[in-house]
């Protein structure tokens, strides 16, 4: 998708507007995702990288439509696979700022495995989940964070299954930065995003983002969110204990770790003919490298 970017003179002077695209969101008016979009645009302006050096990657869902609404490069992939796309991109292009966004269905249900492994791998990515505790795009089915008794056609009377805590999972899997924000608190959210992006390794932001259409009661979150109740720690067990004991309504940074990020790619000579030489046999000019001559050089053969 082409985004019509405003020309800008110098990265330091970036404003929210530089990240606002001309594409009109398909979101219902009042959707919490508007707040997240705004906070992200603000954060990107503050981070000061020009839009063409930023890529916003997502899966499928209402929330996953976000990339088109910024002026950055974007990748709107298939459902649940945003993190692997972001991983491949960041590894191939460490020079870019890669932000991954999506919903609770996309990230915790179908994408749960990639969430685990991205946290473990600790590539320098930021992952923003707009958690509305529902599949919005498919019109209101329960997700892994939906309350056990939330009634819907798909699960009449509720699933009966206790939601899990994405923060606890992220901590267990090895995420290096773990926080919870609220979509409608745009300014603090923007600040949190800035901090997450700046923190090395895999930074995870769970954003409570109300779905006005299928979960109108979530607009009450405005009242029940506990702001600033959390102090960051670098002790994973302590952060986990805090997560497990809180009301799931506290916002703030729970954990900032210092795990090493995923290693750099080897830089090599890039000459395939040097590599091909190992296959030579029977001539006089080249020595056959030991071992590879007969069994392919691999211990796995």
């Amino acid at each position, binding site marked *: 998708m082409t985004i019509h970017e405003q020309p800008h003179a110098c990265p330091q002077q970036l404003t929210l507007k530089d990240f606002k695209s001309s594409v009109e969101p398909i979101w219902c008016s009042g959707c919490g995702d508007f707040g997240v979009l705004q906070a992200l645009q603000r954060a990107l302006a503050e981070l000061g990288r020009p839009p063409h050096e930023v890529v916003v990657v997502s899966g499928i869902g209402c929330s996953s439509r976000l990339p088109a609404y910024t002026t950055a490069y974007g990748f709107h992939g298939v459902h649940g696979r945003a993190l692997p796309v972001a991983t*491949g991109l960041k590894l191939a292009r460490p020079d870019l700022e890669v932000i991954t966004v999506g919903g609770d269905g996309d990230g915790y249900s179908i994408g749960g495995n990639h969430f685990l492994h991205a946290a473990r791998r600790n590539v320098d990515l930021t992952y923003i989940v707009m958690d509305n505790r529902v599949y919005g795009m498919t019109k209101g089915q329960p997700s892994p964070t939906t309350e056990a008794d939330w009634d819907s056609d798909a699960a009449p009377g509720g699933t009966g299954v206790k939601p899990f805590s994405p923060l606890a999972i992220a901590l267990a899997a090895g995420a290096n930065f773990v926080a919870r924000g609220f979509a409608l608190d745009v300014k603090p959210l923007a600040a949190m995003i800035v901090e997450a992006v700046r923190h090395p390794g895999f930074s995870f932001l769970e954003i409570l983002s109300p779905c006005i259409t299928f979960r109108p009661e979530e607009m009450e979150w405005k009242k029940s969110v506990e702001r600033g109740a959390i102090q960051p720690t670098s002790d994973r067990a302590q952060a986990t204990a805090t997560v497990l004991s809180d009301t799931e309504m506290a916002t703030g940074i729970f954990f900032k770790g210092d795990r090493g990020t995923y290693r750099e790619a080897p830089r090599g000579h890039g000459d395939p003919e040097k590599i091909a030489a190992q296959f030579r046999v029977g001539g006089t000019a080249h020595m056959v490298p030991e071992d590879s001559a007969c069994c392919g050089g691999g211990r796995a053969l």
Partner: protein
Amino acid sequence: MSEARKSVAIVIAGSGGTGAITAGSAILAAAARDGHYGLMTKLSGAQVRGGEAAALLEVGVDPIESQPDRFDCLIALDWQDVHRFAPEIPLDASSLIVCDPKNGAVPEAIARSGARIIELPIAEIASSVEGGRINMVGFGIAAELAGLEAGAVDEAIRAMIGGKGERAVTASLGASAAGRAAFAATGTSMKLPAGRKAERWMLSGNEAVGLGALRGGITFVAAYPITPATEITEWLAVQMQEFGGRVVLAEDEIAAVNMCCGSSFGGAPTMTITSGPGLALKVETIGLAIAAEIPMVIVDVMRVGPSTGIPTKSDQGDLDIALHGTPGDAPRVVVAPISIADCPATTERAVHLAEALQTPVMLLSDQSIGQTQTIIDIPADRPAPLTRSTVPFATGPDFRRYVLTDSGVSPMPAPGTPDCQWVADGLSHAESGHPSNSAANHVAQIEKRKRKLETFDFGDTWGEVHGPADAPLALLAFGSSVGPAKVAAERLTAAGTPTRVVALRLLSPVPKAKLAAALAGAKRTVVVEQNHSGQLYRHLRGERALPHGAESFARPGPAPFRAAEIVAHISQEVAA
């Protein structure tokens, strides 16, 4: 085999730990040094490790591209469980069995072949040399049988064992010499004519694909292990330490192919590597890459399916899913190397095609190509490079990622390029890339993606014709079926039925004109393939690319496809 011996086919077998495979590798290495060609297939039992094993070899004066119909000699290091291989080691009355009487009688399943038995005290010979091992005695026996030059034999040992120190080399040289001497004493020989000495390559199809990937410019690989494809991933991971580039072990195949989407979007020529069950997991994302026009090469080393099937055996049953395994209409490029020797160039070409056409390219190898070790002439040519079009026609508000062009290819600037921001999307989209439900946009883009494949000049990529070009009988084959088809055609031609082989490398889009030209004048066309339902035949018929009356000869794995059965099928059908 025939009167003027051109090759000799030998099996070395033994139970876990006897080193039959190492001995087989040594024979191949020695033959190469003696100016010969050769081909080696490995067999192992059901055990994960440590069970019975056998090296199936043919060495000879011409390039060898398929398993022999029968073996001239079985050298048994012992008999424990070796009988389990009997169906895979065809012997007959003119074959030899070399074995150690201490290991007991030749098992019934093997003896019933009527092969002549030569008893040699293999274990005793080995223990007569300090540090001598029975597999090196077996190696010596084989080398003597084939009449390989002593210098080449010793050089092969030095090359293989050198790293283990001089004592090990001495022991191996000694054991091999003792084996040679003992066998020479039997007075039996299947000596090959002298080889034409030259520098050649010895490698497997999996390694050859790896090399093609590096030559093509692949710098990013994401994969999940699966037999028989893992060796490509591992080979690349090792080589890239030196060459540069990165192999990521993904958590699963879906992650792997999505990582490839990301890396390719970032501008890197990209590859993922798998086999059937893993390919099945990738098809959703392949559809995305087709729709969003993201280049990548997807290697599928086919094994016997369906489902887990027989992971260590060959079959060509993934053609259907490679061509059609995506929801919606998603035209794609599918290529298949027609031999091990063809793997480097076809893989390199696959990378070029992916980049130039901005689309996933499926490379269909198979277990038989991938895990067979062979000696080939060093390929003379490399395909001319093709690259990704990245320069926008216009920037800023006028940049359109999916602008409609005659070629169907549009510029694809990578992130980091100013004033060209676009969003890759699997939703139907307008030229701009913006999601669109409009029928006009959808149809324009679906046509564009078809057009870029159909109007592209694939040149030589399409395939090859072997044998008399005006032969009335044409065998049409792909992948590892080409080798046996070529041998069958030679025999048929020699026996008075001139036969050509049309080896199809480009399976999609179907090169109809080239195929028609290649088949011109043929009275009878038989599509030869190693699967159950005749997938290539159905595909070509569905595309109206086969002459009326074309026939199908399809036979599934796990048994290797042999020239003799193709000849038999053709002759039988002719007779009927």
